[in-house]
C-alpha cells in the first residue's frame, strides 16, 4: 500500500513542518502577548505607588507601604511549603516508585480530584474546622494549612511525573551495585527528577502567592506587622491588598493594589530565577545530546 512516489511529497512535508513551527510560535505569542499586556497594565497602574516606602512602612488601609503584606506573604508561603513540600514529594515518590497497585491508583485519582476543589471551599472548610472549631482564630497556621492543602496535589503529581521519567536502567544499575532502595531513590533518581520537582514547587509557590479566597477566611488580614504568634493573630498578605484595595474609592489605594500585584509577580520571578540558578549549581551540565 505504498503511495506512489512524487517529487513534490518532500516539499509538502517541508511545508507542513514549516507551517507547524509557525503555529507553535504563534501559540507562544498567543499567551506571551496577554502576559506582557498584563505586566504593562499592572506596572502602569501601580507605578505611582512604587517607592522605597513600600518596603519600609505598613499599610494604613488606603496608602502607606506594604511591609506587613510582603512579610505576611513570605511567612504564609513558607508555612505552606514547610507542610506541602515534604508531603507532596514523598507522596510523589511513593506514587512513582510503588504506586502501580490499587492504592497508588486511588491516591493518584484523589490527588487529581483535590486540585478541582475550589480554593474557597478549602478556605471555608478551614474556617469552620480550624478558625472556629479548633479555635485558632485568624492565624498563620490556619492560612498555611489551607494553602498547603491546595498545593500538595500539584507537588505530588509533578514529583511523580519527574520520577517516572528517570530511566529504569539507572535504578537497576544502582541495585546491581548493591545499593539500598533509599539510596537508589535519593542519590540516583532524585538528582534527575529534581528539575521536574522544582517545576512543581515553583508552580505551587505561584499558585499560593496568587490566591485570595482561601486566605480571607483563614489568615484574615492585618494592617500590622506579624508579631510571631502562630495562632490567634491575623496576618497580612499581598493578594488581599489587590482584591480589597481595588474596591475602595481612593486612587492611592488602587495604585497600592497594582503595586501589590506587581510584587507578587516579581516574587514569583525571583523564586524562579533563584531555583534555576540553584539547579545549575547543583547539577553538572547535561551531557551533550
Amino acid at each position, binding site marked *: 500500500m505504498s503511495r506512489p512516489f512524487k517529487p513534490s511529497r518532500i516539499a509538502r512535508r517541508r511545508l507542513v513542518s514549516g507551517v507547524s513551527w509557525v503555529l507553535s510560535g504563534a501559540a507562544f505569542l498567543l499567551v506571551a502577548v496577554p502576559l506582557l499586556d498584563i505586566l504593562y497594565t499592572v506596572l502602569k497602574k501601580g507605578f505611582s505607588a512604587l517607592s522605597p516606602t513600600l518596603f519600609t512602612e505598613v499599610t*494604613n*488601609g*488606603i496608602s502607606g507601604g506594604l*511591609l506587613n503584606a510582603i*512579610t505576611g506573604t*513570605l*511567612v504564609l508561603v*513558607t508555612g505552606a511549603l514547610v507542610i506541602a513540600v515534604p508531603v507532596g514529594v514523598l507522596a510523589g515518590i511513593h506514587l512513582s516508585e510503588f504506586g502501580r497497585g490499587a492504592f497508588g491508583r486511588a491516591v493518584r485519582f484523589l490527588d487529581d480530584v483535590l486540585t478541582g476543589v475550589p480554593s474557597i471551599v478549602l478556605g471555608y472548610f478551614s474556617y469552620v474546622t480550624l*478558625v*472556629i472549631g479548633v479555635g485558632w*482564630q*485568624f492565624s498563620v497556621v490556619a492560612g498555611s494549612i489551607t494553602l498547603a492543602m491546595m498545593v500538595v496535589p500539584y507537588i505530588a503529581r509533578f514529583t511523580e511525573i519527574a520520577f517516572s521519567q528517570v530511566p529504569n536502567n539507572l535504578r537497576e544499575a544502582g541495585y546491581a551495585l548493591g545499593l539500598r532502595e533509599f539510596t537508589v531513590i535519593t*542519590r540516583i533518581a*532524585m*538528582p534527575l527528577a*529534581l528539575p521536574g520537582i522544582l517545576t512543581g514547587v515553583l508552580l505551587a509557590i505561584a499558585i499560593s502567592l496568587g490566591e485570595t479566597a482561601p486566605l*480571607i477566611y483563614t489568615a*484574615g*488580614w*492585618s*494592617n*500590622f*506587622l*506579624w*508579631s*510571631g504568634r502562630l495562632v490567634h493573630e*491575623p496576618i497580612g498578605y499581598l493578594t488581599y491588598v489587590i482584591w*480589597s484595595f*481595588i*474596591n*475602595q*474609592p*481612593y486612587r492611592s*489605594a488602587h495604585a497600592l493594589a497594582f503595586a501589590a500585584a506587581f510584587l507578587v509577580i516579581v516574587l514569583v520571578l525571583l523564586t524562579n530565577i*533563584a531555583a534555576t540558578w*540553584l539547579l545549575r*549549581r*547543583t*547539577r*553538572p551540565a547535561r551531557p551533550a545530546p
Partner: protein
Amino acid sequence: MQKFRLTQGMRGAVAAAAIATVATLGTAPIASARTIDILETGSTLLYPLFNLWVPVYHRMHPEIRINTQGTGSGTGIAEAISGVAQIGASDAYMSDMQVKQNPAILNIPLAISAQTINYNVPGLNNIHLKLNGPVLAGIYDGQIRDWNNPAIQRLNPGVRLPDHVITPIHRTDGSGDTFIFSQYLSFSTPAWNARVGYGTTISWPAVQGGLGAIGNPGMVQASSQTPYSIAYIGVSFTREVARAHLGTAEIENRAGMFLLPNLHTVEAAAQQLVAKTPRDERISLVFAPGKFSYPIINYEYAMVNAHQADGATAIALRNFLSWAVNTRGGNAARFLNQVRFIALPPRISALSRQQIAKIH
C-alpha cells in the same frame, strides 16, 4: 562528586530559607503587653471609612490597635456573632430572627450612605434622565426592554430616547448596594416585592443580555464599556462615575419628586425617619416620605456584641465607637466627605451612644 554538590546545594537552599524566615521574624516588633487588639471586618462600603478613621484614631490612642478588613456585610455579622471580630460592619440591619437568635448583638448606626442610579446612553449622559421605582423594576425584571419604552418616555417628555435594548447590570457579589436598591424597588413597586423582594443578593429575574459585575469598580467598568446599560453604584464612587462619563438619573421619591443625591436630599430623608427610628435602630431609610427626601439611602452599621470577653476590650470599643459617631470625631465632615457619607442626625447619634454604653 555530583552527589556531594547536590547535597551542598540543597543545604544552601535550606539555609537561605531559614535566613529568610528569621529575617522576617526579626522585623516584627514585640507587641507591648498593654496593647488592645480590635478586629473590624465586614461591609466593603464602610471599609474605606474605617480606613480613614483608624490611622487618625491610632495616633491619638497608640495603645489601641484596630485592624480593618473588607469582607462583606454577612461575614461581618457572622464574625461579630462568632467572636472572631469585635466589630462587624454591615450595610444591612439584622433580621428579627437573627436578633432573636443573638440578642446580645447591637446594631449601631455609624453614618449614612446613599446610592446613585447611573446609565450609559450615548448622547444623554450629560443630562439627568428621570426614573422611578416601577420603571427600574420593569427594566430589571425584563418587562421594559428598550430605552424608548413609553414608560420611560412618559417620565422624560421631550427627550429623544434611543430605540435600543437596555442592558441592566447588577452586583454579583453580596452587597449593601443591592440591599438598598432592591429595597427601593420593593417599597415602590408591589409586583417586585411579591416576585423578587430584597436582600444583599437577590434572585435577579432572567433578562436576556443582563449582566452581573463585581464590586462598585466592576459596575463602573461594565457600565462604561456597555452602551445602553444601567447600573446602581454606591455614592462613594461618584468621582469614578464622573470619570467614566456615565449619566446619573434623578430618582422619584415617595412624594413624586425626582431628585439627585446630595447633602440636602440625603439629610432631608434621614430627618424624616429620625422620629421613627426605634431604640435598637434597626430601620430602613429607603423610600422615605417628604418632598426633598432622596429615596435610596441607609444607615451603615457596626455590629457589636454587648458582652465582650474582657473589660479592657469593652472600654476600648466604647471609646472608639463613641468617637466614631461624634461630629467632632469620626462623623466630622473631613472624614465623611471623602466617601460622600452623611453624618448621623443628633438624635440618632444619641441613640447610637446609648447602645454603645451597653458594651461591657
